């Protein structure tokens, strides 16, 4: 028993033995390879197939219904090998092909496909590999092409094959023909391979696995890109929402007075710290510094989902340039503004207090000029531990620092130092002098203002007032509880500090204050 195959040759059905079928297929492949792509090539192929069908038919009868290998061999011998055809073009078969495509595993990394192609095209295989890898990154199926080439391009093993692989240089005019020939050869070797049982049982499965792996690789790559893109978009949107929300933060003042609450906003207050121009420049710079990275994150995310275009690099580059300019602008503005704070100086005023021989002087705080809002933790006002506040108009209220010290003689004395910073000593001194801090003494009561005021229109250069009250030895000072928050230095025998000193009467001894008695 023999297995037969049913074929259709030129419109006629033949039953043909399997081995005969393979031989016929090889022959027709050769004919195809020879005539394909020529002028009238298809017609010639049809004519030949038709003639072969005729010859086959003549060999069949009621007693013989199946074409055998002998039939095919006889008929194809009759038709002749394409290289024996007498044609108008002189055959160049004797010259042979200068080069053949082989795999070159000796110089290869995986299967020697790239090095073989490199030898064939006479280029360094590194470039072929680079192209393969880059293409694989972009198009997953290139990996499959590589695997198929690995599978079907023969390996150069014999010396002759290696010579053929290196060959002589290919001229441009040969390339077209070469490509056609190689294509036909590869196709014919693929076909031959496809016909084998081995292929049917195993390699088709393998092929499907390759294809499947290729798809999975490509799919996974795309999924990862999409996930990254989505994450970037979510991040970008979150940051935008965060920035937007930050403008509503009430800490301790609103950043912008968006709700018209009447409270001075941070930006409003900061305008007395820095000049208006600097404020605007800084605002623009900070906005750009914040927004551009967010924009880049969002843009990258969107592009990962939709694919990068040619313009995108330019846009991102432009974003980077603008961001750097903004950074320089912000830095420049800061440096420029820091100059305004570079010099610190003070003016001092000393007074002997007339206390009409009293044994105890009462310290009192005049809180008539209270600010509307207290500022406990404004970052840029918080380097000194004074009480500060502001009103709706943005005027600043700053409390004095009160020190209780020992008088060098037997008189109560008062020293008021006004401090300020500025871009120059002269300007710092001018700002210091312009501080209006009021006090008065009445009988034995020293009345100190709770704050001095800096108009919103005038610059804030960390102005301070230090009040030093000198108490003679053996004399006393009564410090009410409400005054203690203004106290700075006040050495005492109780080793109390600041908030525990108030509400007591103290007597100055040789070195320090001693507790005389508590106020009720």
């Amino acid at each position, binding site marked *: 028993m023999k297995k037969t195959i049913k074929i259709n040759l*030129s*419109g*006629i059905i033949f039953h043909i033995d399997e081995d005969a079928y393979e031989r016929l297929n090889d022959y027709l492949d050769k*004919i195809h390879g020879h*005539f394909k*792509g*020529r*002028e*009238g090539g298809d*017609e*010639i192929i049809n*004519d*030949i197939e*038709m*003639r072969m*069908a*005729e010859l086959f*038919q003549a060999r069949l009868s009621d007693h013989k219904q199946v074409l055998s290998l002998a039939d095919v061999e006889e008929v194809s*011998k*009759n*038709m*002749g*090998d*394409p290289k*024996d*055809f*007498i*044609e*108008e*073009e*002189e*055959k*160049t078969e*004797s*010259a042979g092909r200068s080069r053949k495509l082989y795999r070159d595993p000796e110089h290869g990394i995986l299967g020697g496909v790239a090095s073989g192609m490199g030898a064939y095209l006479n280029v360094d295989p590194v470039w072929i590999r680079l192209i393969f890898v880059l293409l694989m990154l972009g198009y997953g199926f290139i990996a499959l092409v590589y695997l198929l080439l690995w599978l079907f391009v023969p390996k150069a093993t014999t010396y002759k094959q290696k010579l053929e692989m290196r060959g002589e240089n290919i001229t441009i005019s040969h390339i077209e023909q070469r490509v056609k020939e190689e294509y036909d050869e590869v196709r014919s070797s693929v076909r031959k391979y496809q016909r084998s049982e081995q292929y049917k049982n195993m390699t088709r499965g393998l092929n499907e696995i390759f294809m499947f792996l290729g798809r999975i690789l490509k799919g996974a790559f795309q999924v990862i890109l999409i996930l990254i893109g989505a994450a970037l978009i979510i991040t970008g949107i979150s940051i935008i929402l965060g920035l937007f929300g930050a403008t509503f933060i009430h800490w301790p003042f609103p950043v912008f007075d968006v709700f018209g609450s009447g409270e001075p906003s941070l930006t409003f207050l900061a305008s007395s710290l820095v000049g208006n121009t600097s404020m605007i420049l800084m605002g623009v710079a900070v906005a750009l510094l914040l927004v551009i990275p967010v924009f880049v994150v969002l843009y990258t995310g969107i592009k990962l989902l939709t694919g990068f275009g040619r313009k995108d690099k330019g846009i991102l580059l432009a974003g980077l340039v603008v961001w750097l300019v903004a950074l320089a602008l912000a830095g420049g503005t800061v440096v420029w503004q820091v100059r305004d704070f570079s010099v610190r100086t003070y003016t001092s005023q000393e007074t002997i207090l007339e206390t009409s021989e009293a044994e105890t002087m009462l310290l009192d705080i005049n809180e008539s000029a209270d600010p509307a809002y207290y500022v406990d933790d404004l970052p840029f006002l918080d380097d000194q531990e004074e009480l500060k506040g502001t009103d709706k108009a943005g005027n600043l209220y700053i409390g004095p620092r009160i020190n209780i010290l020992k008088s060098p003689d037997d008189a109560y004395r008062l020293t008021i130092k006004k401090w300020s910073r500025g871009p120059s000593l002269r300007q710092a001194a001018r700002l210091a002098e312009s501080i209006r801090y009021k006090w008065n003494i009445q009988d034995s009561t020293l009345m100190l203002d709770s704050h001095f005021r800096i108009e919103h229109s005038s610059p804030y250069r960390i102005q301070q007032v230090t009040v030093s009250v000198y108490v003679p030895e053996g004399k006393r000072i009564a410090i009410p509880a409400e005054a203690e928050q203004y106290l700075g230095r006040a050495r005492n025998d109780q080793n109390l500090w600041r908030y525990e000193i108030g509400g007591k009467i103290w007597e100055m001894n040789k070195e320090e204050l001693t507790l005389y008695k508590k106020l009720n």
Partner: protein
Amino acid sequence: MSRITSTAKKAPAMKIENSKAQMKKGVLEYCILAIISRKDCYVSEIIHELKEAKMIVVEGTLYPLLTRLKNAGLLSYRWEESRQGPPRKYYTLTETGTKYLDEMDESWKELVEAVEWINQKRTPH
């Protein structure tokens, strides 16, 4: 692909097979036209006659030539049903083909005479 041959291309390596093929090529076309001029015939008849005359060894040679002659307008064909097997292409000479053949006849006679005249003077080996 099928262009007029440039023999100069591979002048140094003259091979007898090539020379024979060159010689036969022109003659083969002439023979085909001559066979078809007697009566319309289909491929297998042409082949039969050429094989008998030992003009061709393999059949495959014929098809490209027929296609070329047809494309050159010297031949045309018609389909005819056959009792056994597929329909057949019956080739016939066109008017151009007939004129072409007449000129070939002339040329052939001149050629044969010329070769004979030259060979007469050759001393046989």
